[in-house]
């Protein structure tokens, strides 16, 4: 049997050197440029996501089986607690309905409608690949531009906020999880209303930074999105405050520990800055008229 010159040690060495050089060039280019080959990365994700969806099916089955096994063990205790909660919630719901009715009436009287921040429409998707690596905490979901997903949209699970969309392809999207080093989310305490920034640090417990008043953050208080910055809707549940050491508060995420299969993308439209949302000429004349009218009325 024979081999050609293409299979010779010389050819091997040349190929090896070229491969090393190309890898090093790509590594250096990626390090110095943030958006390097971004379109290609999204494209590869779009192509591979249907394959990963198929491959992940058996694993999701194993996860669900393990989850059921775990759930059955605590079913009795949970059942009792849930019944008690149900009785309490029934009463709370009745009160909430009355308050909602009053609020709607007041809004009608005042001629205002604040509406709800959290959008009603949701885009269901499957998390086909989740990266829990030492460098990145992200996930690939099998919904993209074709289904209305856009960069910045919040991604939820049944337990709470999971992350936000970082990059969008035609059929897939890359989600930056809350734990990722680059994740920064404006949050608030649902009890005290204190605000902070939730900063990921590649651990399972992101840190609360820039807290408005650290004394207002109690251990165990619920953390939700504050809506500050207008990027994410207000009121999405995130987790609970935990002690992360001396004068350091961390958050136990609601999504940690549970298998991530289905997720919901919330198509929230962020608030545009005035430069990107100019008033039309009609609007200008209306404002001018309004100013003129108020000027005439004043003494």
């Amino acid at each position: 049997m024979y081999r050609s010159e293409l299979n010779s040690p010389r050819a091997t060495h040349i190929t090896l050197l070229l491969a090393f050089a190309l890898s090093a060039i790509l590594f250096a280019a990626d390090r110095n440029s943030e958006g390097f080959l971004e379109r290609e990365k999204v494209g590869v994700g779009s192509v591979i996501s249907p394959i990963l969806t198929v491959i992940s099916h058996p694993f999701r089955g194993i996860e669900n089986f393990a989850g059921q096994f775990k759930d059955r063990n605590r079913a009795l205790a949970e059942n009792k607690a849930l019944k008690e909660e149900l009785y309490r919630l029934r009463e709370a719901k009745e009160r909430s309905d009355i308050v909602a009715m009053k609020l709607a009436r007041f809004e009608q009287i005042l001629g205002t409608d604040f509406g709800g921040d959290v959008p009603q429409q949701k885009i269901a998707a499957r998390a086909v690949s989740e990266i829990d690596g030492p460098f990145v905490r992200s996930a690939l979901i099998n919904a993209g531009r074709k289904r209305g997903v856009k960069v910045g949209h919040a991604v939820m699970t049944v337990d709470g906020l999971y992350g936000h969309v970082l990059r969008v392809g035609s059929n897939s999207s890359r989600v930056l999880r809350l734990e990722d080093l680059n994740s920064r989310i404006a949050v608030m305490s649902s009890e005290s209303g204190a605000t902070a920034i939730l900063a990921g640090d590649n651990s399972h417990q992101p840190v609360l930074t820039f807290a408005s008043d650290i004394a207002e953050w109690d251990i165990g208080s619920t953390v939700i999105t504050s809506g500050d910055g207008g990027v994410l809707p207000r009121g999405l549940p995130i987790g609970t405050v935990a002690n992360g050491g001396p004068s350091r508060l961390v958050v136990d995420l609601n999504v940690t520990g549970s298998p991530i299969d289905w997720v919901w993308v919330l198509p929230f439209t962020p608030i545009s800055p005035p430069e990107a949302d100019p008033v039309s000429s009609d609007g200008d004349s209306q404002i001018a008229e309004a100013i003129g009218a108020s000027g005439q009325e004043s003494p």
Partner: protein
Amino acid sequence: MALSPIVSSKGTTWRGGLTMCLLTLFATLHINLFGQSVALTFLPVIGVCLWPRFSNPPASIVLLFIFGLLLDFLTFEPLGIRSLIYLIIFTVFRPDLRLKSFRFNMALAYWIGAILLSLILSYFLGWLGRSVKPEWTALLYQGLLAMALFPLIYGIRHIFKTLMKDVGLRGF
């Protein structure tokens, strides 16, 4: 074209490629069992370690480069880091120069060596690529997990070898 006698490499390189392709896809999956996350990012290193002996070296290098890059694309890790790791492991362990077919103990020793090397490379290249020290506990956990999975992969390989005829000639 000059020709030199050698054992045939025909039909073995694709096996390495196919193994790498499957392991790369599995490496991007994430499993959560009983509240513990199972990440298999180091799984493809098995493919580099058990690369067929009689494969075509230039083609093997190209395939390793491509699959390393593919994993970087899919995992959003610094581009080129996996290619560099695979190529270094391939250069150090040189599966094409292996004289004998692997026995389990030998393969396990190779595997542990390759994992340790890839852990060290991942740490320092990741640090260089991201300018932030990687979380070493996550690296160690993934490395240990990959080591624990080795007997399973070796077993599957053994079954595959048994099913294929003339394994000695094909060099797998």
